[in-house]
């Protein structure tokens, strides 16, 4: 009964979405306030119904209702409760329900919290949002019903892929989706602005909090996914340039560009059509990601079950939404008048360089990701794969100048800036960065030139960012109390920028350290074997068999010593899941800021050897790797600070609150 209710709720939500696609739009063009305001009720109604459907699906997983096909295929009665709940979004259908839930939640949030947005723009935005939800709700109902029943019900389920039974990964899709799908509302704002034919500073200000919120979630989602890959896959890497990683990374890159170009539109009324284009493209890349993951177009470790019919449906949705919005853009964008002028050396130019580099980097990642497909199509069936060497040699060098400009940018003033003066102020920062890079070169024996350059730029960015903050609060120029008072009065967005930029600098230390100075040992061990790595002596004490709730584990015991002194005992595990017939590695990590000592058990050395307790042991030392996650946390917190800025809450260019009479007269 409850699954049918969930199915019915989806159908009701589709009905509301159809109404919301048309009525507010008609209201906006005819000046009918009642029609425009209908979007509020219908967007809240959509949220309610989709939430009911989601809850119904989740209940089926919680109580292990094996009459529902989706539960049978993705759950098991012995699974821990957390993973039963996470199983709700572990499959194609379930994750799509989550996708739509977040989509309609953003629509409802705009109608609830967007009190300062003019009625017309809000009505059009919500109508566009409803177009998207119409597309995806119909996709769910027509091709991917999550509530399909099976008869007769099997006694137990097939289990969720054990790799995915992990707390980090249970939380990864929801965060990633909030980011991905959150850009939908920015897209809707952009299309609504194109329909209105007007983009101004106020528009950029209304869009900014939504962009920030989506960007923050995407940052958290990507970082969590990368952290998961790091400790769960047992390879010790944190980024593999897998197509599915790339498709989550591209909206992040372009979303970052959008955040910055929207600042120019807000403050200087410039870059208007570029900002609109970025808003459209960012969400288009999110949609592209959804398409690639679900169509089986590219080979990837993450892909869902493949179904060409679904792929075709999403491609059609893509054609309508991306093609339609870009056609609208091609028609309307040339009519937008250009805004404030600026000199080649100015903050505008700095942000332009930021945008060009981020856009080019996005293009590079997109090209590298899709090249295997293009190649296959053009050569008539030949296949190849594009691996980390391509991305490392194209993407990384592209980002380095960006980091350099990031250090300078905040010092530049709007319209025209004095580059000489800025460089003058930063000469100590540059000297210190150079010294830091030299010091690293002296201490760490070997490493690629790129790594030293990265260290130089990370120090440069960190110090320049702190220096800029210090200048703003006139640190050391006026008494400390006065500086603190200034810091309190500084807009939170300024603190947010400082924190986020410093966060990227911190993350670069992590990227460079763990890529360039990683050490790795893969050895066969028997009880009593010793391995030395990065100053640690690791002794393998043996492996023991243990039983978990739905798995059997071999747990190794490693004693770590440094200079003879005991440091820590590590317990890497190798788990096999009999129901799902697969194995996972649970690595054991000794984490410090200086670096991670990372151990994982690979397969037994051979059959006879496993009887005598011999294993393949992989031990890595990844210097500075935790700086990556620390930097991600700072990026997230910086976004949060900026989001809490007073100007976004109050909406400075506030118009008199739109009463019915006022709008009718407009």
């Amino acid at each position, binding site marked *: 009964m409850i699954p049918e209710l969930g199915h019915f709720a989806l159908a009701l939500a589709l009905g509301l979405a159809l109404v919301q696609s048309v009525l507010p739009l008609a209201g906006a063009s005819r000046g009918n306030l009642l029609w425009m305001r209908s979007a509020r009720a219908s967007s809240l109604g959509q949220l309610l119904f989709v939430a009911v459907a989601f809850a119904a699906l989740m209940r089926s997983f919680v109580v292990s209702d094996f009459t529902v096909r989706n539960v049978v295929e993705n759950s098991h009665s012995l699974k821990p409760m957390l993973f039963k709940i996470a199983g709700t979004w572990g499959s194609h259908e379930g994750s799509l329900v989550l996708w739509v839930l977040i989509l309609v939640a953003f629509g409802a949030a705009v109608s609830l919290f967007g009190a300062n947005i003019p009625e017309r723009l809000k009505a059009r935005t919500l109508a566009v949002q409803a177009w998207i939800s119409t597309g995806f709700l119909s996709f769910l109902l027509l091709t991917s019903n999550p509530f399909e029943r099976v008869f007769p019900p099997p006694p137990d389920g097939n289990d969720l892929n054990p790799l995915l039974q992990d707390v980090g990964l249970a939380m990864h899709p929801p965060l990633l989706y909030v980011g991905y799908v959150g850009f939908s509302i920015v897209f809707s704002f952009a299309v609504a602005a194109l329909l209105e034919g007007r983009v101004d500073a106020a528009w950029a200000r209304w869009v900014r909090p939504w962009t920030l919120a989506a960007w923050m979630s995407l940052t958290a989602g990507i970082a969590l996914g990368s952290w998961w890959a790091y400790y769960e896959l047992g*390879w010790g890497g944190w980024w593999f340039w897998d197509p599915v990683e790339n498709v989550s990374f591209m909206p992040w890159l372009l979303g970052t560009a959008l955040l910055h170009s929207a600042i120019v539109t807000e403050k200087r009324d410039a870059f208007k059509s570029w900002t609109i284009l970025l808003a459209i493209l960012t969400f288009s890349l999110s949609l592209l990601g959804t398409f690639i993951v679900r169509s089986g*177009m590219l080979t990837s470790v993450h892909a869902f079950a493949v179904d060409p019919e679904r792929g075709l449906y999403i491609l059609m949705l*893509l054609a309508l939404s991306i*093609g339609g919005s870009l056609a609208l853009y091609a028609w309307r964008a040339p009519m937008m008048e250009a805004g404030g002028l600026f000199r080649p050396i100015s903050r505008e130019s700095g942000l332009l360089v930021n945008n060009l580099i981020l856009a080019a980097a996005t293009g590079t990642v997109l090209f590298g990701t899709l090249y295997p497909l293009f190649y296959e199509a053009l050569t008539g*069936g030949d*296949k190849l794969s594009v691996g980390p060497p391509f991305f490392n040699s194209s993407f990384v060098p592209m980002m380095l100048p960006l980091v350099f400009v990031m250090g300078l940018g905040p010092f530049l003033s709007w319209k025209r800036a004095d580059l000489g003066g800025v460089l003058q102020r930063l000469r100590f920062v540059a000297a210190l960065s150079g010294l830091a890079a030299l010091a690293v070169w002296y201490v760490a024996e070997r490493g690629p030139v790129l790594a030293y350059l990265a260290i130089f730029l990370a120090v440069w960015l960190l110090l320049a960012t702190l220096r800029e903050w210090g200048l703003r609060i006139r640190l050391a120029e006026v008494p400390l109390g006065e500086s603190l008072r200034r810091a309190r009065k500084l807009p939170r967005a300024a603190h947010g920028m400082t924190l986020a930029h410093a966060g990227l600098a911190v993350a670069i230390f992590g990227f460079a350290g763990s890529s360039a100075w990683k050490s*790795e*040992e893969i050895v066969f061990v028997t009880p009593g074997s010793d391995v030395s790595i990065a100053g640690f002596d690791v002794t393998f004490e043996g492996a023991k068999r243990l039983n978990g709730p739905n798995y059997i584990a071999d747990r190794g015991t490693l004693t770590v010593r440094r200079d003879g002194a005991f440091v820590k005992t590590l317990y890497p595990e190798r788990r096999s899941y009999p129901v799902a017939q697969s194995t996972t590695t649970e690595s054991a990590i000794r984490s410090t800021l200086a670096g991670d000592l990372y151990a994982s058990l690979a397969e037994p*050395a051979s059959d006879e050897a496993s009887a005598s307790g011999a294993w*393949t042991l992989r031990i890595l030392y990844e210097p500075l790797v935790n700086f990556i996650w620390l930097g991600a946390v700072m990026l997230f917190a910086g976004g949060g600070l900026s989001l809490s800025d007073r100007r976004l809450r109050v909406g400075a260019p506030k118009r008199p609150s739109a009463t019915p009479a006022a709008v009718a007269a407009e």
Partner: protein
Amino acid sequence: MVRLLALIPLLIAIVFGAFFLWGLNPDRDPSELPSVLISQPAPAFDLPPVPGAGVPGLAQEDLADNDGAVVVNVFASWCVPCRAEHAVLTRFVDEEGVRLFGINYKDQPEDAVAWLENLGNPYERIGSDLDGRAGIEWGISGVPETFIVGSDGTVLFRYVGPVVGDEAVEEFGIALAQARAVPLQGEGS
């Protein structure tokens, strides 16, 4: 002019869309790989040794006249699964006396040497395929890939991806045992 510029994103999107439509063809399986080499002679290639690795290079002739089946493994130091596979291949060499040849694919020689020094070198010969040319001849789709080549230089088996994990090792082991059971072939191909 502005009008034309504003059209560019749409045109690019249409081109992408056309590729995607082609890619959705239900007969196309992106994970299926053409195995044109099976039962064919190994392709013509001639690779120099990896400087500093201490083993000779690899060419087609080295595969043409052997006493039994040999294994050709395509690897690179930047490839993470290759590291996992390295232990398995080393075991085949040490325990079963397999003759293992390597193609070092798109890899800087110094990186490859460091990798081999770190993990050990089970390879009898290693050809340095810096520009990926031999990789194209062999039709590889990525690294690692492992081929079993008969005593007369005929490619008998291809394994895509790392030979790691019980199933993969079993599949590869069976193929290897069959290849080695075949007596010296006189008929040629």
